[in-house]
């Protein structure tokens, strides 16, 4: 399985500021995603991070609020911009394995727990 790390693991931020979350995978993966999990809720897909091009956003999420970069096959960043308390959530990086038994299997990173005051 892919080993995924995220930084920071948690943060407390003031409203109006921005936070960039990093996701690093230990191997090349076919696809990378960013999810949000609000307290007590299920997981909601924010966007698919595309290597070398603009991310593909789901309905309700826009690039100005959640800019995403993916410069190579093992690294991506998600920025939560102009934060408000409603952005308090766990943000999770997720990847699909590349080939073999890991193909189509989706793994999650440990998450970044964000609290906006």
């Amino acid at each position: 399985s892919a080993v995924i790390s995220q930084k920071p693991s948690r943060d407390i931020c003031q409203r109006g500021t921005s936070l960039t979350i990093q996701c690093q995978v230990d191997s090349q993966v076919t696809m990378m995603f960013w999810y949000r999990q609000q307290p007590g809720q299920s997981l909601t897909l924010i966007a698919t991070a595309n290597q070398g091009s603009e991310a593909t956003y789901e309905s309700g999420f826009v690039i100005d609020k959640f800019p995403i970069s993916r410069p190579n096959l093992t690294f991506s960043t998600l920025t939560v911009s102009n934060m408000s308390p409603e952005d308090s959530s766990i943000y999770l990086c997720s990847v699909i394995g590349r080939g073999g038994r890991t193909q189509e299997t989706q793994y999650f990173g440990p998450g970044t727990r964000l609290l906006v005051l």
Partner: protein
Amino acid sequence: GQQVMQIPQYQHVQEGEDFTTYCNSSTTLSNIQWYKQRPGGHPVFLIQLVKSGEVKKQKRLTFQFGEAKKNSSLHITATQTTDVGTYFCAGRGIRSTHDGKLTFGQGTILTVHP
């Protein structure tokens, strides 16, 4: 769009009792994945089911994929306190095999009383 419904939302059991959670998709799935999330943790991959009617076992856990590939279940035999957590199913639609998107169920929160 594709929807995945998961029931029950909550389940309280006494240690040693069995537990089952069910998922039902509005559309035919290419595959379905199950995850466990411990309190304060992140979703951990348990298993992927791909074939119609597939049954897979992991120790006390039994996973089933329906014949029509629209529903799935997870059954835990003789629950233990270590089984506590939220269990999510996540389905990938036939049309999502190229974009890889998963649609998550709402999750079932399992509490095991010793």
